[in-house]
C-alpha cells in the first residue's frame, strides 16, 4: 500500500487536566471521504483544530503525505494543503461573497491572484449554488448560504485535504439533501475529505468508513455500516445523544 495522505499518530491534546484528544491514531487515504463522529464534547473539533493548526498537539505526530505538520502555525499548514470550515460558521462579514472566496484562493495552497482568482471564485460560487450572488455582502446571507461561502472558500485553496466541521448541521431537510449531494460531488472529483458530523444519515450514505471518538478516545474505526452497529458505539451515543 502507498503512503496514506494523512497520518494521525498517537495524537494527544490536553487542556490543563482535561484530555480532549487522548492518543488517537488513524489514517486517511487519498481520495477518501472519512466520517469522524462521536457524542458532543468527544474531541472531534479539537481533532480538526490539531490537523489545521488552530491548536498544536500536546504530543504525537501528524503527517501529510509523509511531511510532519503537527504544531506548525495554521497559515503554513494551509499553504501545505489543508483547508477547513468551522463548526460555528465564520465568514468575512464586511466583504462580498466573491471576495470571501477569493480570500481562500490567494494565500493558501493554490496562490492565484487577479483575474485568475476571480474566475476561480466565480466558478466555485456557481458550484456551491450561489451563482449570481457574487456581490452580495455575506453578512446579509442566510445560514446555509454562509455555509456555502465557507465551503467555496475552503475549496478555493485547492487543498489536499478538506476538513468539514458539522457542515450539514442546522440545515432543513431539503437543504440537507442539497448539502449532501454537494459533498458527494466534491468527493467524487477526488478530493480527500474528513467530515465531522452528527447527521447519521449523511454518514451512512456518504462515508464508506468512519472513525468514532468518545471522551477523547477513538473507540471504533471501520466500515460505516458495521461501526454504526457496534454496541460500544451505540452505547456511547445513547449515553447523551438525541438523534442516534
Amino acid at each position, binding site marked *: 500500500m502507498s503512503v496514506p495522505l494523512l497520518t494521525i499518530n498517537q495524537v494527544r491534546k490536553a487542556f490543563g487536566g482535561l484530555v480532549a484528544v487522548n492518543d488517537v491514531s488513524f489514517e486517511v487515504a487519498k481520495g477518501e471521504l472519512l466520517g469522524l463522529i462521536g457524542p458532543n464534547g468527544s474531541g472531534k473539533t479539537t481533532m480538526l483544530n490539531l490537523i489545521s493548526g488552530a491548536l498544536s498537539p500536546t504530543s504525537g505526530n501528524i503527517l501529510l503525505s509523509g511531511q510532519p505538520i503537527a504544531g506548525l502555525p495554521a497559515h503554513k499548514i494551509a499553504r501545505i494543503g489543508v483547508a477547513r470550515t*468551522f463548526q460555528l460558521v465564520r*465568514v468575512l462579514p464586511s466583504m462580498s461573497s466573491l471576495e470571501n472566496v477569493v480570500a481562500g484562493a490567494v494565500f493558501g495552497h493554490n496562490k492565484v491572484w487577479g483575474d485568475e482568482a476571480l474566475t476561480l471564485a466565480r466558478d466555485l460560487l456557481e458550484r456551491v449554488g450561489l451563482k*449570481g450572488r457574487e456581490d452580495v455582502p455575506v453578512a446579509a446571507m442566510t445560514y446555509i448560504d454562509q455555509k456555502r461561502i465557507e465551503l467555496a472558500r475552503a475549496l478555493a485553496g485547492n487543498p489536499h485535504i478538506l476538513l468539514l466541521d458539522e457542515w450539514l448541521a442546522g440545515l432543513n431537510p431539503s437543504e440537507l439533501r442539497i448539502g449532501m449531494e454537494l459533498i458527494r460531488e466534491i468527493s467524487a472529483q477526488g478530493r480527500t475529505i474528513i467530515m465531522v458530523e452528527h447527521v447519521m444519515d449523511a454518514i451512512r450514505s456518504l462515508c464508506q468508513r468512519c472513525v468514532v471518538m468518545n471522551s477523547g478516545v477513538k473507540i471504533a474505526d471501520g466500515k460505516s455500516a458495521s461501526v454504526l452497529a457496534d454496541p460500544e458505539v451505540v452505547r456511547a451515543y445513547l449515553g447523551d445523544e438525541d438523534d442516534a
Partner: protein
Amino acid sequence: MNIPRNEILTLGAGLAGAAVLAFLPLVTEGFWLSLSVNIMLYAAICTAWALFSGPTHLVSLASAAFFGVGTYSVAIFVDVLPFPALILIAVAAGALLAILVGLATLRLSGVYFVIFTLGLAELIGQIVTWVQTNFGGAIGLYVFTDFTETHLYWMLLALTVVVFLTGWLVNRSRLGLALRIIGNDEAVARHVGVDTARARIILFAVSGAFIAVAGAIMAPRYSYITPDAAFNPMTSFLVVIMALLGGTRRLWGPLVGVVPFTVVMDFISGHFPNQTAVIMGLAFLAIVYVLPDGVTGQLETLFRRRCSLDKSSLATTAEEGR
C-alpha cells in the same frame, strides 16, 4: 492587472487636487499658511495611521513615538548630513521601531495593544531625556535650517501624496487583501494561509516610517527640540480622534476628519488653552460613541442600506421568476 476606470479617475483627480494645493503658499501666508501646514501634517499622519489601524482595527497610540523618532533623526544629524539623508534616517528609524513594537505586540489585541503603544511613546521620551541630561549636557537640541513654512508645507504635501499612493497600491495588493481578511476574522485569515504576523508588521512599519518622516519634516519648525515636544502624547490622541472622526474604511476617510478638526482645534487652543485637553477628551468620547465608523463610514452605511434595499427587492423578483 487592469486598473478599474473609476480608480484611474480618482487617482487623476487626487493628483490634480494635490497640484492645485501646491500653489497655496503663493496666494497666502502667515496664519493661513501655518494652519495649512498643520492640516497637511495631520493629513499625512492620520492617513498613514489609518493604513495600519483601519484594516486591522488595532488602535495605535504610538504615533507620538514615531513622530518623535523622526524629529530626533533630524535634530541629531542636522549639522552633519543633508536634509534628504535625514529623511532616509527617519524612514529607517520609524520602520525599525515599528518592527520592534510589532514583534513585541503580536499577541496583543484590543485594549492591550492601545496601552502598550501609549506607554511606548512615554518610555522613549523618558529614555531620550535621560540620555540627554546624562550625556548631552542639555535637555534639548537646536535645529537651524533655511526652511520656511512654505517649504514645510510643500514637503508635507509631497509626503501626503506618497502616503496616498502607497495606500492605494497596498489596497490593490495581496497585502491589502490579507489585512482586510485579518480585520474581518484573524482565525479565518490564518486558515486561508495568511501569515498574519508578517502582514501586520509590514504594514505597521510602513505606517510608522511615514509618521517618522512627518516628524522629521516638522523638526525645523520647532528649532529647539525637547523630548516633551517631540514625544508629546497629544499627537497620538489627535491622530486617533481625527482619523476616527473621518472614518478609516476608505483611504481618504481620515481627511474628512482632519480638515475641520484642525481648524476647530486651532481655534480652541488659541482661545481656551487651559481647556484643550478636556475638550479633546470629550470629542474623543463623542466620536467613539456616536460615530464608530466615522463620518464617511456612517454615510456609506446609509448609502449602502438604500442601495441594498433596491437590490434585494430585485433579487427576490429574479428568484421568483425562475
